């Protein structure tokens, strides 16, 4: 049994401390130590994007980040998207546009789509497809996801 390391970090704006082994991924610690099960384990090797979280303002695959690396960092997960019980417009547009079937990839798509719209409020279809390329979906065929992101962009612009 390897010795545990103490890590202090911020998750969705709240200070969090945990103990972990060096070999544990951020995804593992988020789900198992912190009970934040929104980020999903898909491929566990950085291909599918189901585990996407924001790390210091940029989207990362949390399955290929070591939990010990996030000492002092700021993490945002899909749990931080909805505010006081109200869904974020991106979440609402995914629901209304039926941009999901099994839903395993959805948290990752939501986090990456939010990162894209924060950076580029008016993305073209190409921008959306290019920036969401690290998120795989085996159900929808992507068209509904792209349309949901376009709808969310339009709604966010009217605010």
């Amino acid at each position, binding site marked *: 049994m390897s010795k545990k390391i103490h890590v202090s970090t911020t998750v969705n704006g709240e200070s969090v401390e945990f103990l972990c082994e*060096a070999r544990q*991924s951020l995804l593992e610690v988020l789900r198992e130590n912190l009970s934040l099960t929104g980020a999903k384990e898909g491929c566990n090797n*950085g291909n599918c994007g189901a585990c996407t979280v924001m790390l210091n303002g*940029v989207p*990362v695959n949390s399955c290929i980040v070591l939990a010990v690396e996030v000492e002092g960092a700021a993490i945002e997960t899909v749990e931080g998207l909805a505010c006081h019980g109200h869904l974020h417009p991106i979440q609402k547009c995914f629901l209304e546009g039926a941009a999901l079937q099994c839903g395993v990839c959805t948290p990752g798509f939501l986090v990456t789509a939010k990162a894209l719209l924060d950076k580029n409020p008016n993305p073209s279809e190409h921008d959306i497809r290019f920036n969401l390329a690290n998120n795989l979906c085996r159900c929808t065929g992507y068209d509904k996801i792209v349309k949901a992101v376009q709808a969310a962009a339009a709604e966010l612009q009217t605010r």
Partner: protein
Amino acid sequence: MKSFDYAAPTSLAEASALLAHANGQARILAGGTDLLVQLREHLREADLVVDVKRIPELMELSFTPEQGLRLGASVPCYRIYEHAEVSAAYPALAEAARIVGGWQIQSRASVGGNLCNSSPAGDTIAPLIALGASCTVVGPEGTRQVAAEEFCVSPGKNVLRRGELLSTIVFPPPAKSGGSAYERFIPRNEMDIAVAAAGSWVELDPSGKTIKNARVAITAVAPTPRFAAEASQWLAGKPATEETFAQAGELAKKVASPITDMRGTQEFRVHLVGVLTKRTLAKAVERARG
């Protein structure tokens, strides 16, 4: 993943000492997009993982038109293509950084890590060679410079010795009438490994019609990334025309020794070297003309 010890040194000397004196196998962790996958899949082993992202030199990104670019070995790819001046001065590098994996990978993966992983298909390596980058290697016996084309020695292997780490990649200042480009062939739009790739850099004479200097590099077509020395030397003094670019492509083919695998046949890859060399030279010349 098997257990290992973890250290996050804050200086080059500390990192080098940890790597030199580790019990068993020490591995350097930058963005982790190769290493952590390899450890999980037991393709590589580690008793100690040395996270180098808290060493200031490895996170440096500084550029001036006079001094050129100093790129810390663990600076993530997105910081390159989001830097307007760097992207304009070294377009081949920015083009490669933008297609290393997807966005989540580019948030973590570094050019230095791409080089140290030493895959024959590493996307950023052809631009490093074409742009004449030099690698600063720090170790127990001091610091040495290694030309980008000398860094990789076989698939997955490079010149780093025990206790050494890549600290900085140094790019010469951009030439006044210079331009560069990188292109790879993949059967999809994004998120794939190159079947073949080429990076080209050119400097034109003041007329804009003649090539003064050029460097061509090709990847995914040999056990290591290759500098196409003969093609590069031949280009100097030649008119910047499609015919010249095509001829340089033929010369670049001579240093390709690809394998046939699921991504493509030997014959197809050699053909691609000609096409991609020609295209990247044309694009580099167009950029050099402004």
